[in-house]
């Protein structure tokens, strides 16, 4: 446990250093992409637990991300002004759930407060994960991959085809999310730094939770399920229950990341729900070494940052596909566990 705290200390230090370095080089605009990468890292960390530890693959986590993002986006932008005299709306207003603001042109917008959006995002993601998790988690291996893939496609086509979700345009003009007075998740230029630290905070908390979970009885049970499911069951581990709980947890984390990123970006588009996004998360988890919190986090930050800065150009998705192939072939243990000395020795032996 001590070791965990030390590592988390180092993580905090690195996050602060990144900020200081980018500030000293006058490149604070990097922080925008870094913040986005941090939110994506949350999804990856959830998947590290689900895939790396419990051994259950999901090709549908972009779906949960989108459920989170779209729920809060729609609730915080849908204008209730024309219904403002309706009893229900009045009731909501009295309960303090609504938020009145003006748009760019001075028109009044009455919509739900982002807090309501966030809470509902998580609740809906958890409910959906519960409902599809019960039947789907009975499947194993390829079959589970296909079933979760199917779920991802359904979410994608729904957001793409529903006018409420803005179809191909997505939802824009999502207002900032005031967590506390003076502290809000928004894409405003002068709040860039504080937003980087807000996202960092969530990642550190997530890492803390993960490390504690992994080193607990629950973590042992998950590893057992991964290693030999029948044996785990005959050792008295309630495998179905553990798998479902981890699935729901990772879905909630993905939805949280989706909701926060939507407020940060001020909008969300259907590409966030696309299957390629799910594949990307899986590729990153694999590149990090599957059952590795630190590997997953490092790869999530690095690859997402490069992608968001546009280094991969229009080959973005191709790069992640290639990452998946290359990792599976040459570094199934993850990039961080490649041992250059060993490879050198092997090649010398061969020649």
């Amino acid at each position, binding site marked *: 446990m001590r070791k965990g705290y030390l590592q988390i200390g180092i993580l905090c230090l690195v996050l602060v250093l990144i900020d200081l370095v980018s500030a000293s080089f006058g490149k604070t605009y990097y922080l925008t992409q870094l913040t986005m990468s941090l939110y994506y890292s949350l999804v990856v960390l959830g998947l590290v637990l689900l895939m790396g530890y419990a051994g259950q693959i999901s090709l549908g986590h972009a779906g949960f991300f989108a459920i989170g993002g779209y729920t809060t986006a729609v609730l915080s932008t849908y204008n209730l002004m024309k219904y403002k005299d309706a009893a229900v709306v009045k009731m909501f207003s009295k309960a303090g759930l609504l938020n009145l603001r003006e748009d760019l042109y001075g028109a009044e917008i009455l919509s739900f407060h982002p807090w309501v959006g966030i809470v509902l995002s998580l609740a809906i993601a958890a409910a959906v994960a519960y409902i599809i998790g019960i039947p789907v988690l009975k499947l194993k291996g390829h079959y589970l991959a296909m079933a979760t893939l199917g779920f991802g496609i359904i979410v994608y086509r729904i957001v793409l085809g529903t006018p409420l979700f803005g179809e191909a345009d997505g939802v824009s003009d999502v207002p900032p999310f005031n967590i506390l007075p003076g502290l809000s998740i928004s894409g405003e230029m002068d709040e860039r730094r504080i937003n980087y630290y807000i996202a960092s905070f969530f990642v550190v908390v997530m890492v803390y939770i993960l490390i504690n979970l992994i080193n607990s*009885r629950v973590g*042992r*049970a998950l*590893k*057992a399920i991964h*290693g*030999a499911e*029948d*044996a*785990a*069951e*005959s*050792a*008295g*581990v*309630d*495998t*179905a229950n553990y798998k479902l709980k981890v699935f729901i947890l990772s879905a909630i984390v993905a939805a949280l990341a989706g909701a926060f990123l939507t407020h940060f970006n001020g909008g969300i588009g259907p590409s966030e729900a696309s299957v390629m996004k799910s594949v990307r998360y899986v590729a990153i988890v694999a590149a990090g070494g599957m059952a590795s919190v630190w590997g997953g986090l490092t790869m999530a930050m690095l690859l997402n940052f490069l992608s968001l800065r546009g280094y991969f150009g229009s080959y973005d998705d191709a790069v992640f596909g290639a990452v998946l192939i290359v990792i599976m072939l040459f570094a199934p243990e993850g990039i961080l566990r490649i041992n250059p000395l060993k490879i050198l020795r092997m090649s010398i032996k061969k020649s």
Partner: protein
Amino acid sequence: MLKIRNIEAGYGSIKVLRKVSLHVNPGEIVTIIGANGAGKTTLLRTISGLLRPWSGEIKFNGEDITRTPTERIVRLGCALVPEGRQVFSTMTVRENLMLGATVRFGKDRREDIERDIEWIYDLFPRLAERETQLAGTLSGGEQQMLAIGRALMAKPELLLLDEPSMGLAPTIVKEIFNYIVRLREELGLTVLLVEQNARSALKVSDRAYVIETGRIMLEGRSEDLMQNRDVQRAYLGRDLDREFV
């Protein structure tokens, strides 16, 4: 203690067990012998709840467990040592033992569980030496001891053993079987054992069943079965007809 009536079970559309009935009395060591594919493992998987039977009834201490989930069955006191040992290879010996106690957390105190781990170490001193080693790095015999130790951590009354001799050297097989007898003597443990190694299994058990293509063909005291001509020919590698020609 365990009563099985007319169990039928299988995979997909293939029926493996055909109306199998058997019983195990408290304190007994009962062995089931049979060739590859006779349904021995399927039978143990069905008893332990890993496989749902198509029909029939399984009772453990009077309670119907035919459709009870595995984890509940372990809680009731019936633990399985699975075929091929299936230790959790990426975890240490100690972690494997802790996992065996999963059903006891929240019920027993932590000290009791720790004490039982020490007790397992007393029983299998070789596990104590390898406490912090990963289970995947153990030898086959040690893995078998670990698998048995893991099942014992759940404090079962009935231990189901699936081919403990599989892939082990003859001297190790003997050692493992000695442990099984000791467990009965020291703990009063009831054991249901499935084996291809008929000779060793019959030697340590009180009663035995012979299973062939999913049917129980014979039942009797182990000593009697050892003398049985058919059993000798089919499972003990002796052809009496030829010997007396």
